[in-house]
């Protein structure tokens, strides 16, 4: 059986380039379904036969885990990303800190109530104490890509996106990189799931993502290592550090609660 | 065939009570009198019709018994007034539309007779008016129907074609024993095809019966605008029983039947059927008719049915007298001839107030 991996859209390039290596190493063919993490989580909960899930934020994987669909002990925070402020390539705008966003007309954010990138951006600005002033200037985009596109078109003064997204575009310039210290903890957690057709393949893939070769590839594309990542995930290690804006985001499940009796 | 039906229409309700014994009925009536509606009811196409229809012993409609045979089971060969060809089919496909394998069909016959061979592959939009009508006729004939419902099927045909089609319809009627109901405005066509006739007027049956009778009298008035009756208005004068007269003009008085209920001097209108007048070229003496009027022939008109409408001016009033062509010939009647009209007083029928026939009135 092929291994089916659900992964946040922002990891497309990385995973696609890693796929051949995984196949060679494990003998499993891998297929990806990229999308918005929130959609992917919903799909998994509705019964999608995914073997592994790489989410752009912890809250989405929490939901899945709470539904008992995560293979026990497989969850791991894989990589981190960095938020950057981008401006149109020709823009002379100087951004030296969050406060500079206050005076702009339009600031693109992925939907701050739901989409991880937006959620993180909002958390950063809140922490910096400027959210109240920036909020009225915010244009909530459907996803990071849409936020980026608006800046590319020159129809927004600036946008807060992932460094990985900004790296791929020639039409924007990174005006400011949010220091790791100021940003909320950004983690892309991954886990093997129970209801796929190749559960052990899923587990193998999650393990593979933790190999140095995989990490190197992620880093090459601009991802960061997760600060304080533990090799063996521990439930207490990823207590939601941000307000995911999801009312159902409830306390983390107990370790091991994700195994179902009927799971293979 | 037994009809007893009602159908509400825009301005009146079509009400037909009639029973036919022959295999061919002409349906006549002025424009908008309900002819097409009647055919549609028979074909089972009209919603809202009530009553009873029996054709050839088969009850097709009996609303009181809850019977309403669907159109496809009625086997009516309906030729609509406006052809209504299927626009998505060629003429040939139209003709064959109702043909079913294993059932008799007269496609080839109809196609040949109606000269449709060169049109078979054409679509209706490019056909001429007469061509469409022929295709529609062939389409109905081809199905070998139990009754043909023909709504002016020859109206757009030239006379030559008509004269070939009419005998064919007669053959279908007689040899294949397919009865027909034939709507037409042409008395000639009606006479050629029909043994019985139904005359409609404003949705009501104006006359029904043997074709000769219906076509000869009432129909002519309604259809041709020619008065079948001479209408005379004047003042009544009845000094004593048995001597009532209608004074029409100075020079023209008419003995009419007694009307004791009407007082002397009353205005009244009388009708004298054109058929009931005797015409003579010599002075009339010793005839039983009480009225003898002298006048001059002004016009001779062919009235169909071998008859001739002879117009006679009597003291300024135009009378119409119906004579056979033979009589006209024998008496050498021609305009300008001095003639005498004999009118029995019993032939003078008093018209109720406002009760004139709906056809145009004379004189």
């Amino acid at each position, binding site marked *: 059986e092929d291994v089916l991996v659900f992964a946040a859209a922002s990891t497309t390039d990385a995973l696609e380039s890693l796929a051949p290596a995984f196949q060679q190493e494990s003998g499993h063919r891998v297929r990806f379904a990229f999308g918005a993490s929130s959609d992917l989580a919903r799909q998994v909960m509705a019964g999608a036969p995914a073997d592994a899930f790489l989410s752009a934020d912890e809250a989405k994987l929490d939901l899945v885990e709470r539904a008992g669909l995560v293979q026990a002990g497989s969850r791991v925070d894989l990589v981190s990303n960095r938020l950057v402020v981008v401006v149109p390539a*020709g823009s002379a705008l100087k951004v030296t800190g969050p406060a500079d966003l206050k005076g702009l007309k339009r600031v693109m954010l992925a*939907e701050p109530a739901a989409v991880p990138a937006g959620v993180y951006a909002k958390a950063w600005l809140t922490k910096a104490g400027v959210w109240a002033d920036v909020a009225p200037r915010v244009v909530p985009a459907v996803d990071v890509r849409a936020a980026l596109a608006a800046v590319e078109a020159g*129809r927004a003064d600036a946008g807060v996106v992932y460094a990985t997204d900004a790296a791929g575009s020639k039409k924007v310039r990174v005006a400011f990189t949010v220091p790791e210290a100021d940003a909320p903890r950004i983690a892309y957690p991954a886990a093997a799931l129970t209801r796929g057709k190749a559960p052990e393949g899923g587990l193998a893939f999650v393990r593979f993502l933790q190999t140095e070769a995989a990490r190197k590839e992620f880093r090459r594309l601009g991802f960061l290592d997760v600060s304080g990542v533990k090799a063996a995930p521990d439930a207490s290690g990823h207590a939601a550090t941000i307000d995911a804006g999801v009312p159902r985001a409830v306390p983390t499940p107990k370790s091991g609660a994700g195994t179902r009796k009927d799971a293979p | 065939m037994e009809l007893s039906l009602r159908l509400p229409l825009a301005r009146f309700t079509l009400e037909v009570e009639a029973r036919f014994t022959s295999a061919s009925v002409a349906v006549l009536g002025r424009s908008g009198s309900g002819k097409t509606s009647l055919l*549609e009811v028979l074909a089972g196409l009209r*919603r809202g019709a009530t009553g009873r229809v029996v054709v050839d012993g088969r009850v097709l409609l009996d609303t009181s018994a809850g019977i309403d045979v669907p*159109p496809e089971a009625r086997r009516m060969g309906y030729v609509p007034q406006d052809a209504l060809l299927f626009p998505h089919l060629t003429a040939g496909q139209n003709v064959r539309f109702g043909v079913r394998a294993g059932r008799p069909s007269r496609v080839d016959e109809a196609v040949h007779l109606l000269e449709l061979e060169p049109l078979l592959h054409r679509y209706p939009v490019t056909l001429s008016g007469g061509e469409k009508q022929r295709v529609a006729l062939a389409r109905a004939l081809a199905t070998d129907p139990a009754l043909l419902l023909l709504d002016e099927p020859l109206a757009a045909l030239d006379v030559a074609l008509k004269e070939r089609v009419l005998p064919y319809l007669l053959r279908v009627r007689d040899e294949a024993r397919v009865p027909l109901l034939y709507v037409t405005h042409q008395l000639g066509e009606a006479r050629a095809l029909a043994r019985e006739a139904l005359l409609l007027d404003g949705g009501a049956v104006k006359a029904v019966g043997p074709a000769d009778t219906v076509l000869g009298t009432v129909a002519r008035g309604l259809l041709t605008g020619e008065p079948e009756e001479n209408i005379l208005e004047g003042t009544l004068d009845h000094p004593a029983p048995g001597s009532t007269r209608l004074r029409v003009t100075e020079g023209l008085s008419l003995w009419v039947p007694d009307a004791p209920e009407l007082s002397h001097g009353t205005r009244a209108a009388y009708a004298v059927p054109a058929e009931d007048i005797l015409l003579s070229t010599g002075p009339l003496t010793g005839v039983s008719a009480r009225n003898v009027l002298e006048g001059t022939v002004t016009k001779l008109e062919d009235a169909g049915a071998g008859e001739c409408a002879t117009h006679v001016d009597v003291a300024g009033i135009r009378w119409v007298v119906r004579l056979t062509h033979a009589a006209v010939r024998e008496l050498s009647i021609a305009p300008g001839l001095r003639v005498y009209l004999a009118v029995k007083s019993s032939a003078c029928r008093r018209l109720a107030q406002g009760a004139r026939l709906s056809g145009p009135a004379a004189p």
Partner: protein
Amino acid sequence: MDEGLTGLVLFTVAVAALSTALILVPGVAAAYALARWRGPGRGVVETVLALPLVLPPTAVGLVLLELLARDSVLGRLLDAVGVEVVFTPKAVVLASAVMAFPLLVRSARAGFEEVDPRLVAVARTLGDTRMRAFFRVTLPLAWRGVLTGALLAFSRALGEFGATVLVAGNIPGSTQTLSLAIFQRTQVGQDAEALKLAGVAVVLAFGAMYVTEVVTRRRGARGLA
């Protein structure tokens, strides 16, 4: 919330109605031209007109964004005259209009193709120019198709999401339509709220349908069984 809902509904209806109204004239004209004109290059025109239908809405949105980009021809022009489109209600109207256009054109075209050209010919013998005959005969007779197209366009405008969200953003109180609001609620996991909004959308759809129905009601009938 209910006050906000009223505003949302009014805005949505206004936007859908406006985008339908906006494409009505060019859409009907295009439909008529396509129905009549049998020249070469027609297939190409048709395909271009159908694009918004066959491409994923998001892609259409991206294309629109490109077209309106600050350094694009159109963008410069708009900037020059001081008209802002992107991320304003105008963008909502624009996106809905673009997405609805092919639906209107296709349906209206089918309507025009049903019109008997002989009736138009008769109108011309009665003194109508081509133009007058179009308005007095062709259009009224193609009415059913045109209205069906307009209804489809309006409904599509109500439901449009992908293209709109890209060029207009999902700004509550400014560019957020019912559709965007429903999406947002589902995104945030507020399914009950989303359902409620969906119910409102259904009512709107029903209203549009009802109006169309009343307008196209058949005039007279032969009363056939």
